[in-house]
């Protein structure tokens, strides 16, 4: 049975809207919906260009709706947390009065039986509006717009940017080779895989040779030495960004394992200050104690299982001018 490791990527994007969508969003804070004139058409939401020819449109805005007619719809019986409503609703194409194109939005229709083409709907506004499309929570049946909670009024300044907090969760199937490498690491073994074709040995559980494009199964496993030499390194001065956990300059080292052709890249170092790291320095693997349960799942970032990093082992440096070229 395939095992999965979950990973979530999040980022607070800030999106600049430009003069046309910016005007639309600014108007939403004032509970007004704008379209733009394109010849005989009124496009809603407004666009910067003619969608057929690509020609630039003059900023000739026209207020539409706020009441409109459902032209088509689809029912969402079990919404996810990212949907606009947390109970069953319809996504609908709504032609607002005065517009020639429909707007896609949610309709709080109660049940799918009540949804019909030609249904008249009006916006339910958020009390506090910031200039986003979800300033309209959804559309409701009837001709009367609603406002949810106390109305804090229109934005004082034109809306130019939109916050967009993105979050996506992946379920990654864990390759069998990765699982075997992680299990071996609990016994302080560093597993390698030898390609039967090119004889190159790869550390860890990638499970394939990138040169020959062949799968490397359990029959290819070899035990790798857990002592090696630093061939190269980066000292990173961290800059702040969401998800950056480092605050002080830190080392990522490349370690060539003794008696092999294997380099473990971008490895953490332990008890080795950034200003003391050197090419040629001798190091030994540092393992998590079984009690620490270090990344038992072998999931995100856990490619090396219980291998935490590398620490000087006290042996004299190796002086070899070619070492520095061993990055991979």
């Amino acid at each position, binding site marked *: 049975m395939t095992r999965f490791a979950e*990973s979530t*990527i999040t*980022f607070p*994007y800030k*999106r*600049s809207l*430009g003069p046309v*969508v910016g005007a639309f969003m600014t108007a939403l804070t004032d509970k007004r919906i704008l379209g733009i004139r394109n010849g005989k058409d009124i496009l809603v939401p407004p666009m*910067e*260009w003619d*969608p*057929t*020819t*690509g020609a*630039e449109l003059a900023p000739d805005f026209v207020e539409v709706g706020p009441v409109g007619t459902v032209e088509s719809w689809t029912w969402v019986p079990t919404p996810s947390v990212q949907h606009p409503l947390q109970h069953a609703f319809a996504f609908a194409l709504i032609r607002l009065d005065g517009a020639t194109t429909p707007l896609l939005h949610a309709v709080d229709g109660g049940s799918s039986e009540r949804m019909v083409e030609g249904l008249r709907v009006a916006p339910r506004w958020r009390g506090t509006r910031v200039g986003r499309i979800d300033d309209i929570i959804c559309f409701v049946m009837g001709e009367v717009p609603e406002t949810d909670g106390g109305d804090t009024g229109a934005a004082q300044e034109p809306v*130019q940017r939109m916050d*967009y907090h*993105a979050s996506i969760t*992946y379920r*990654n199937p*864990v*390759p069998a080779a*990765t699982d075997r490498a992680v299990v071996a690491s609990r016994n302080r073994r560093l597993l390698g895989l030898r390609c039967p074709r090119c004889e*190159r040995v*790869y550390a860890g*559980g990638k499970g394939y040779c*990138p*040169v020959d494009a062949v799968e490397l199964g359990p029959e290819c496993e070899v035990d790798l030495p857990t002592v090696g030499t630093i061939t*190269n*390194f*980066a*000292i*990173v*001065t*961290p*800059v702040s*960004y*969401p*998800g*950056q*956990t480092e605050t002080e300059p830190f080392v*990522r080292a490349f370690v060539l394992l003794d008696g092999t*052709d294997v*380099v473990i*890249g*971008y*490895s953490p170092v332990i008890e080795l200050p*950034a200003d003391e790291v050197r*090419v040629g320095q001798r190091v030994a693997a540092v393992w998590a104690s079984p009690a620490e349960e270090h990344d038992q799942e*072998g*999931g*995100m*970032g*856990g*490619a*090396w299982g219980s291998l935490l990093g590398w620490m000087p082992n006290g042996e004299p440096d190796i002086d070899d001018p070619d070492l*520095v*070229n061993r*990055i*991979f």
Partner: protein
Amino acid sequence: MAQRTAVIGVGQTYHRSKREDVSIAGLVREAAQRALEDAQMDWADIDAVVIGKAPDMFEGVVMPELYLAPALGAVGKPMIRVHTAGSVGGSTALVAAHLVASGTHERVLTVAFEKQSDSDAMWALSIPQPFSAPLLAGAGGYFAPIIRAYMRRSGAPDHIGIMVAVKDRKQALKNPYAHLHIEDISFEMVRDSIMLWDPVRYLETCPSSDGAAAMVLASEAVADRSSSGTPPAWIHGMAMRSEPTMFAGRDQVNPKAGQECAADVYRQAGITEPRREIDVAEVYVPFSWYEPMWLENLGFCAEGDGWKLTDAGATALDGGDIPWNCSGGVLSTNPIGASGMLRFLEAAMQVRGQAGEHQVETVRRSLGQAYGGGSQFFAMWVLGADKP
């Protein structure tokens, strides 16, 4: 035999750290409209659109080409998105060129962009990957050890990286479109900037930019009829190569894919001595040390000698015999997805005599190069003033 293909229009935005006044579509259209104006064409004249950008993570808009199709007048036309990390701007231009060279289309618009201010490149290049140790270091942390390996194996002195950083920023002062205009740039300023990714200093790295680039590529028949008054830049050779990021024994400093890509392009263009036969080059140098490294990779000198050319001033617009990155290069302007196309576009501007203050006198042939990923994707073209 491929059809003769030429660049007949170029356009770019004024690159900035933040273009908060425009949407992504507005940014892209700005460059595209300038390219169309330069080619004296309208949206309707275009047969197909080829667009490129770096990973969608940079703006958080998944597959932006879907919403940009009408913004680029691509309704009812073929539209292709190209995706090769940092080299994408170059690869995108080449895919567009192939559509003309193959005889499929007569006039192709190609566009590349990045709007880095919508997010943070350090984050987008450091997101956790499944079953990999977290790097938390961005691109600089990745390239720093490779640069250290180059410095040690070539014996290059420390000041070479600083020289390139100063040279490219000085050249950017002659390019009104460049993002960085550091009027008082100096050796001391670069030397004293913080060591961001040892051995790479802050001012030896590229900025984060918002920007877009666009070109119109045309068949011989269209280029011959062009009434724009600016001569076409003819493609004399173009190639792409790739290789895996990591395998035991890979030479990261002088990647084989880059050498082979250059050899292919030179063979097509009939070039045997690049330093003598190419008048100006725009090469992807996001960290200053990549100038001497690519001088060697691209065959402008023997292996180990790249830094000597830089040291002797051979690559400077002012007095050098093979000026590199007269526009200020990636070190001065880096809208990632567009950075590769800007190299290709600047190569075209030099051949067409459009480069203004950073124009090199009498350019018969120019080179545009881009690389991406872990130095694993390469794209290049050689352009000429004469028909190939």
